[in-house]
């Protein structure tokens, strides 16, 4: 079982989106995938995956012995992935308890842990349960700065692998020299990229409705990311501007 924490430092850069979308792609590839919401108190993985109305038990119930981990898992309606919902107000959950809970997840090839923003207790709890980390950043200065701090902190956890997903890349701006490239960003962080996801209006638009459709700009990039993660590869090409078809009249 591979346990991968998706973290960032800065809030709102796309951790939950990456966790959910990567998880669905891994599930589509046939891997038994569980998405764990470690954002205790500010949980929204259930909302992003659209399972919130079907949540019966959550992490708090499992830890209190009211149900088993298996019973708390909610089936994603768009893929074979399962979601382990977080609890409202469980700040007292210890890192050890959380780790034991993650280790008790039955029949999983991948466990993706959606980490809360920040580098406090919730960060420690989420990272302690993982053996690999994906640091999500956008090409903006403040996100990269926080990602850099997170990369430094992660070195204390002896993870098997730490890699970066650069989210919300605008290939048109990169090619005009107005935005840093994925290579630039990862060079600054001295951490290899495992994925590059373009800015995609479809994500914002369809996220609340369910699955982002196949034709979305980001779909190919997520396929690439999932394949890299599954094969432990780091094949990331710089995102290219989509050329407009020239019409002849």
């Amino acid at each position: 079982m591979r346990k991968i924490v998706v973290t960032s430092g800065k809030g709102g850069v796309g951790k939950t989106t990456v966790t959910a979308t990567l998880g669905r792609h891994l599930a589509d590839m046939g891997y038994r995938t569980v998405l764990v919401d470690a954002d205790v108190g500010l949980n929204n993985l259930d909302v992003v995956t659209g399972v919130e109305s079907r949540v019966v038990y959550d992490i708090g119930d499992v830890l209190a012995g009211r149900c088993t981990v298996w019973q708390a898992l909610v089936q994603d309606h768009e893929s074979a992935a399962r979601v382990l919902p977080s609890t409202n107000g469980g700040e007292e959950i210890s890192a050890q308890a959380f780790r034991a809970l993650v280790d008790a997840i039955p029949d999983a090839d991948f466990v993706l842990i959606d980490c809360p923003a920040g580098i406090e207790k919730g960060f420690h709890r989420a990272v302690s349960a993982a053996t690999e980390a994906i640091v999500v950043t956008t090409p903006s200065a403040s996100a990269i700065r926080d990602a850099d701090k997170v990369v430094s902190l992660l070195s204390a956890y002896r993870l098997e692998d730490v890699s970066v997903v650069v989210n919300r890349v605008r290939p048109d701006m990169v090619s005009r020299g107005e935005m840093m490239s994925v290579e630039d960003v990862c060079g600054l962080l001295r951490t290899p990229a495992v994925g590059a996801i373009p800015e995609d209006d479809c994500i914002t638009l369809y996220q609340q409705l369910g699955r982002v459709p196949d034709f979305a700009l980001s779909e190919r990039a997520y396929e690439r990311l999932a394949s890299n993660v599954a094969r432990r590869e780091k094949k990331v090409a710089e995102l290219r501007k989509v050329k407009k078809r020239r019409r002849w009249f």
Partner: protein
Amino acid sequence: MVLRRADAMHDRLRKMLTKDKIGDAGFVSALKRDVGRVLKDYFDLSAEPEVTVAAGEDGGYAVTVTARAGDVRRFRTTENLSRPEM
């Protein structure tokens, strides 16, 4: 040649990240103290050493130590060793 904004941002960030790591938290002053302590075992320093750390092009750091000494010291712990030749 137009200065690419992405390059300017890259440069700015590299400085920012370097400063985050070595700028505050007394990194340079601690380094200076340690370097000074080691140098003082070998030399009679005429002033405190200067230590600067800058981010290099390759992603590494350029560390420069400048110190002036009036004389070479005998090793305190190995008094019987011959004095290094000047």
